[in-house]
Structure formats: structure tokens, C-alpha cells
């Protein structure tokens, strides 16, 4: 088993799928000679050529719309949006169009496409290079939304996303790209979409989370264990479809739940998870379900103390764990 970064895992997943299936191609800004601003497609132009590695004009709506048209006519495009903050012009083509292709044609057409974008903060990215965009897409039936946390997950989930017959929004936390390393099997594997993963077993408190926050939660869980608080960490991996069964199972086990996510807290993924818990596991709760999410400001500011105020870290999670443990 090789130890690789999240970025390398993403690169490997795309390379393997492109080698396996000539319907797969990539389009996006700077993905050709530059290899992508984060180098996710480094070396791809020389291996796959200009026909399958398409440097596009700086026009996100058409990146999504052209990918959608290609998907509806039999190809499997991966459209890269350089930063998730630039994804908003695609909303019309993705939420308005791609999500409705199958339903609006009574299943005669479908849109097997992946829209990849690096998202999230804590990288001094300020308002327009730090946003988290999952909730907007996750609201829409017809779409799938994937938020991987580790190299193993990123590779297996991206391969499944490329093979999926419906549109998938694949949101990579850019801070995990080089920071997070992990073992990835040498042999081929995939991870099914819609299956959460228990990243750490525990007895007293469940943390439900995804993306970069998985790592901060694991760190906080480690700190809590020194105080004899046993924390279970459930990584959702995909936020649509949600793995309701795994969510309910962990809540039934511990009775206390903390939901951690970097995106704005209100009306976010945690709001839906919380509602599902109160509907399906109410009798098992020993404390109110707590959300620890992004604050009520529209985006993450630039200056370090301001950015830190927005970002959730192990320390903030530890405080929430302590409060919940004492309830």
C-alpha cells in the first residue's frame, strides 16, 4: 500500500478512469499545460492529448452546460471548476438543468457527469477562495454531492462518481490536498456513494461530520480520550444521498450527538442531519443535538484573527464535546 496525498488520490482516480473508459474526458480552466491550479491534472495533457484534456475559456456556466450536453449524448465528462467560489454561474446548468434531465425526460436521458471543485477555508483564501458550497447542491433531488476527507476515500469515491449515471458534485477540501496523507491500496477499488464511514469508534458522544472537519474532529476525539470521554466519529463522505442508517446507528449507540461542519451552520447539512435524528432516534437522545458550524457571516475573512474566528478547529470542537459530555 502506497502512502499518498488527497491530491494524488484524485489524480490517480481520474487517470485510472480515463485509461479504462475513453468516454471520460476533463474540461476546465488551466487544466491543460498548467495541469490545473492545484496540479490535479498534472501530466494529463501529454498522456491523453488535447481532445480529452480541454482547456476552456474562463466561462463557468458553459463549462457546466457543455459538460451536461456531452453527458446527455453519451460521454462521461469531468468538469473542473477552479475554485468552488466560482461555481455560482453553474447553478443554472446544474441545479436548474442537470438535476432535472432524468426526471424531465421520463428517464429517456441522463447526465453522467462530475463537477469537481476545490472548496473550503483555512488557507488565507478570504471571501472568494474559501467558500463551502455543498448545501446549495445537496438541497436538490437529482444531484449527488460528495465531500471526501482522506486519500483512500477521495480515490474510491471519485472513481464511483465518474462511473455513476447521475450528476455528481465532487467537493474536495483544498486544505486536505497536500496536508492529508494516507494509505491507498495498489489494487483497484471503489467506494459506493451514500455510505458513511466510522472513522473512530466510541461510546459516549457521536460526532457526525465530513470533509476537512473529519481530521479536526479526530484530533478533538483524541484529546477527549485523555479526559476519559469516548468519542465516535462518523464521516458522512457523501452529503447527498445521506446515509441515514449509519447516522441513526451511531446516535442510538451514544445518545449524544455533535454535528460539525465548516459551511454556514444555519440551513446547512447539519440542520438536515439533526432533523433526521430527532425524527428517527428521539427516544435514544440523552442531550439536545448540537451543531457546530460556520458563523452567520456570508464568507470567510482574510486577516488571520478574522479567519480563525470563522474556522472550526480541534479546540472549538473540544469545547463543544466538553459541554455535551457534561449535559
Amino acid at each position: 500500500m502506497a502512502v499518498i496525498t488527497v491530491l494524488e488520490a484524485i489524480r490517480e482516480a481520474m487517470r485510472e478512469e480515463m485509461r479504462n473508459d475513453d468516454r471520460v474526458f476533463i474540461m476546465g480552466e488551466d487544466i491543460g499545460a498548467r495541469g490545473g491550479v492545484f496540479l490535479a491534472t498534472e501530466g494529463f495533457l501529454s498522456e491523453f492529448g488535447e481532445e480529452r484534456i480541454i482547456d476552456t475559456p474562463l466561462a463557468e456556466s458553459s463549462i457546466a452546460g457543455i459538460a451536461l450536453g456531452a453527458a446527455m449524448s453519451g460521454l462521461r465528462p469531468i468538469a473542473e471548476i477552479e475554485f468552488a467560489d466560482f461555481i455560482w454561474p453553474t447553478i443554472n446548468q446544474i441545479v436548474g438543468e442537470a438535476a432535472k434531465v432524468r426526471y424531465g425526460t421520463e428517464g429517456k436521458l441522463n447526465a453522467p457527469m462530475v463537477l469537481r471543485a476545490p472548496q473550503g477555508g483555512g488557507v488565507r483564501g478570504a471571501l472568494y477562495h474559501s467558500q463551502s458550497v455543498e448545501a446549495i447542491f445537496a438541497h436538490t433531488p437529482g444531484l449527488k454531492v460528495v465531500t471526501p476527507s482522506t486519500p483512500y476515500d477521495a480515490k474510491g469515491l471519485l472513481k464511483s462518481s465518474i462511473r455513476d449515471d447521475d450528476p455528481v458534485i465532487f467537493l474536495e477540501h483544498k486544505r486536505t490536498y497536500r496536508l492529508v496523507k494516507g494509505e491507498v491500496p495498489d489494487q483497484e477499488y471503489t467506494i459506493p456513494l451514500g455510505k458513511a464511514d466510522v472513522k473512530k469508534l466510541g461510546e459516549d458522544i457521536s460526532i457526525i461530520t465530513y470533509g476537512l472537519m473529519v481530521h479536526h474532529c479526530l484530533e478533538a476525539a483524541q484529546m477527549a480520550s485523555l479526559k476519559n470521554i469516548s468519542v465516535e466519529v462518523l464521516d458522512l463522505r457523501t452529503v447527498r444521498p445521506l446515509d441515514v442508517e449509519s447516522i441513526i446507528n451511531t446516535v442510538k449507540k451514544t445518545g449524544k450527538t455533535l454535528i460539525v461542519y465548516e459551511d454556514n451552520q444555519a440551513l446547512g447539512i447539519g440542520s438536515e442531519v439533526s432533523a433526521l435524528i430527532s425524527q428517527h432516534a428521539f427516544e435514544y437522545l440523552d442531550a439536545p443535538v448540537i451543531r457546530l458550524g460556520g458563523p452567520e457571516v456570508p464568507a470567510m475573512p482574510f486577516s488571520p484573527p478574522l479567519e480563525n474566528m470563522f474556522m472550526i478547529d480541534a479546540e472549538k470542537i473540544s469545547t463543544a464535546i466538553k459541554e455535551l459530555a457534561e449535559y
Partner: protein
Amino acid sequence: METNLKIQDELLLKMYKEMVLCRTLDERIWMLNRQGKAAIMASSQGHEAGQIGSVAALRKGYDQCYIYYRDLAVLLTLGLTPAEIIKGFVAKEGEPLSGARQFPTHGAHPEYGVINLSNVIATHIPQAVGAALTAKMKKEDRVIVAYFGDGASSAGDCHEAMNFAAIHKLPIIFFCENNGYAISVPLSKQMAVANVAARAEGYGMPGIEIDGCDILAVYETTVEAVAKARAGLGPTLIEANVERYLPHTSDDDDSIYRSSQEIEEAKKRDPLRLLREQLLERKILDLKEDKHIHESAKEIVNKATEEAENAPYPETTDFFKHVYAE
């Protein structure tokens, strides 16, 4: 030369029959709306020569048409039956494009190569470019036609799509049916240039403005653009100047923004009348046959109306189907 003329005569007569049928069907659907039986209708009256003349230049069932809501004649000429079309307007079971989930004429019919996904203006133009990209990547000689109105030509998606198609020399025709109005907004408030075709130069592709009521001009221009696209020589923007004889839709009142004199003036170039006169003059058609063509169209539409009205509404059992792959 003589043979060519003979083929042309046959083609013109065939297109005339299609146009009569489409006009008869269109009038019937408008009536069904006024009777409270069809919830919404966007009439194609005045657009038919643009639509029928361009479809005639395509390989049916192989080339693909990304159409918009006013393209009744495209649907009819590509192969949908009047009964299937009316079923869409009365939202009945057996509607083939979306199972009556969508507005009439919306959805897809892959066998006929026709897609009308959305009500959001111009979103289909980049999608059509994506289909053209597929044709190029698969090395198929398929041609895509994106039909849109003058209103759509203002949308950002239209610009982005044309730019990309021209860069990659994709096999696509941008077919603008310019009727001079985006619902109520006249051309003078939509663009500062004289015509949509002029924009093509800015993308590096040919832009051709034609009389969209002259079906032969439409046909010949499209044939040339299709041949060019099929040969890998890139896209063409065709602007067909057509007329809109009825309000934007059955929910619109055009008397608020359009004078009756203007509409009467526009009717002087009614594509149906122009083609009829041409056929009579060239003795391709006589009055007796013309009468028969009209009666036959009426009969077809009567039968279709009856079939559609008698059809049941769709069951709700499949309401949750086709959200994701099953």
C-alpha cells in the same frame, strides 16, 4: 438541372403539406387553450418556414435538434404525431417527451434526435454545443442544430456557447428564429446592432441573415451550413427573420405593446401564403390538390384531438421514478 428542379418541386410540395398540417395543428391547440383544455401554448404561426426549411436539410434521426418552446414545426417534421403533440398540451398519458411531466413540447425524444429540456431561455445552447463536442470526439459526422429566439441571443450562455463552438470548430448550427420580440421587448431594446448574425464575426464564424419566411432560402442556407459542419469546418450562425402572429403565449396580451396594423403588415409575409402562391404559380400545386391538402390536415388534426382528449391522465404511481438511476 431539370432533375434538380424536379427534386426541388417535390421537396417544396412536401414542405407545404407539413406547413399546412403544422398551421392547422397550431390553430387547433390555440383553440383548445381558449376552451380551457390546454393550459399553455406558444404558437409557431409565422415561424414555420424557418423550422420546416431547416429540418429538411438534416438527416432525420441522426442529426440532433436542441429546440425551444416555439418549435412546434420542428417536432412535427422530425416525426412526432399530431396526437402525441396534443397529448402534451392536454397533459395526457402517452405524451412521449416527458410523460406529461413538463410543459408541452418539452422533454426529449432520442430516436428523433430532439431535445427540449428547459424553460430557462438559452440554457440549451451550451448543452447543444456539448452534444456537438461529443460528435467531434466520437468522430461521428452528426450535426447539431440549436434553435433559439432573438430573446435568447442576449443571454450569457448564448455567448459562451458560440465562443466555445467556434474555438473547437464544432459541428453545430446556431439557428436564430428572430421574430423581433422577446415577449414584449422589441429588437431595438435588445441589441444596439442591426442583427444577430453580425455577432458571428466576433466569434470567428460565418453569420448569415436570411428571410425566414422564404422556405427555399432557409433550406438552401441550412443545407450549406450543414455540409460545412459535417465536413468538420465548424459552426454557422443563421438568423432567420420570421414573424410572430400571435401573442408570446396564450397567457400574453400583445395588444398592450403591439399595434394590429403591425401584425397585419407582418401577415403580408405569411410563410404559408408565400409558399402556396409560389407552388400555384409554378404549377406544382393546383387548387383542387390544395383543397385536399387542407381537408386532409384537418381530418388528421380532428382525429388527433379526439385521441388526445380521450386519453387518460398519467397515473401517479410513477411520480417518484426517474430521479436517479434505478
